[in-house]
């Protein structure tokens, strides 16, 4: 039984008061290798690290619901547009978060949603564009109360 679960059972750990993220995350939720997940999307084609903005608060008060806005600089014309967005959180118990596939009437390369983040980590977005191109962007978030680990009272 992990120390965290023992403490919870003994009633010694305050609800929602996580141990400092850095102290626990490396043992409980290490950074996972998401390269194979990305390769499945890109088929090995090059991914350019530009033009994808991943907006998340730098400090998330509660990892259960963190607002995410993804924006890609794209004309979104018929021939030059974003076709798919893939979101990964490399330290979540399941790094794949969501994927969005845009049909022809989507006007902006922008999605707003709310995601779960277990611990302080990098959130990465891969954008697939017409012409077999791939772009990526990422950001770093500190989480004070962890999704999937800290349970509510």
């Amino acid at each position, binding site marked *: 039984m992990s120390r965290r679960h023992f403490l919870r059972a003994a009633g010694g750990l305050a609800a929602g008061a996580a141990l400092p993220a850095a102290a626990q995350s490396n043992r409980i939720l290490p950074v996972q290798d998401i390269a194979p997940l990305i390769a499945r999307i890109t088929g090995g084609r090059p991914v350019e690290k530009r033009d994808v903005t991943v907006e998340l608060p730098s400090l998330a008060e509660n990892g259960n619901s963190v607002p995410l806005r993804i924006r890609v600089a794209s004309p979104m014309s018929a021939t030059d547009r974003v076709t798919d967005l893939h979101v990964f959180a490399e330290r979540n118990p399941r790094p794949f978060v*969501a994927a969005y596939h845009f049909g022809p009437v*989507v006007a902006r390369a922008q999605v707003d949603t709310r995601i779960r983040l277990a611990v302080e980590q990098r959130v990465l977005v891969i954008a697939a564009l017409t012409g077999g191109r791939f772009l990526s962007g990422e950001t770093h978030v500190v989480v004070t109360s962890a999704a999937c680990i800290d349970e509510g009272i």
Partner: protein
Amino acid sequence: MALARLQVSPSVRAGEAVEVRLLVQHPMETGFRRESDGRAVPMNVVNSLVCRLGAVEVLRAEFGSGVSANPYLSFWIVPPASGELVVEWVDDAGVKGRVAATIAVT
């Protein structure tokens, strides 16, 4: 059926981009949560969703357990013609949901 809300301007000028906002009531159970007796609540999330305007597929999405409970989504479209905007989804338990709104293009 899950309660859901779909918001889009009911009247749009031709060629104008509008925001579509969706909120679905769903616990998005991760499978990690435990009941007071210690048993894990089984994973059950809305795993796929599709939005259509008439016959045109607007957007498709796949969600994992990393999407928050009561999932919220916003995206922007230029509706080519008036019609019914429909969003349908299904969760891991096979329960389906649907919500719709009418758009008039002037």
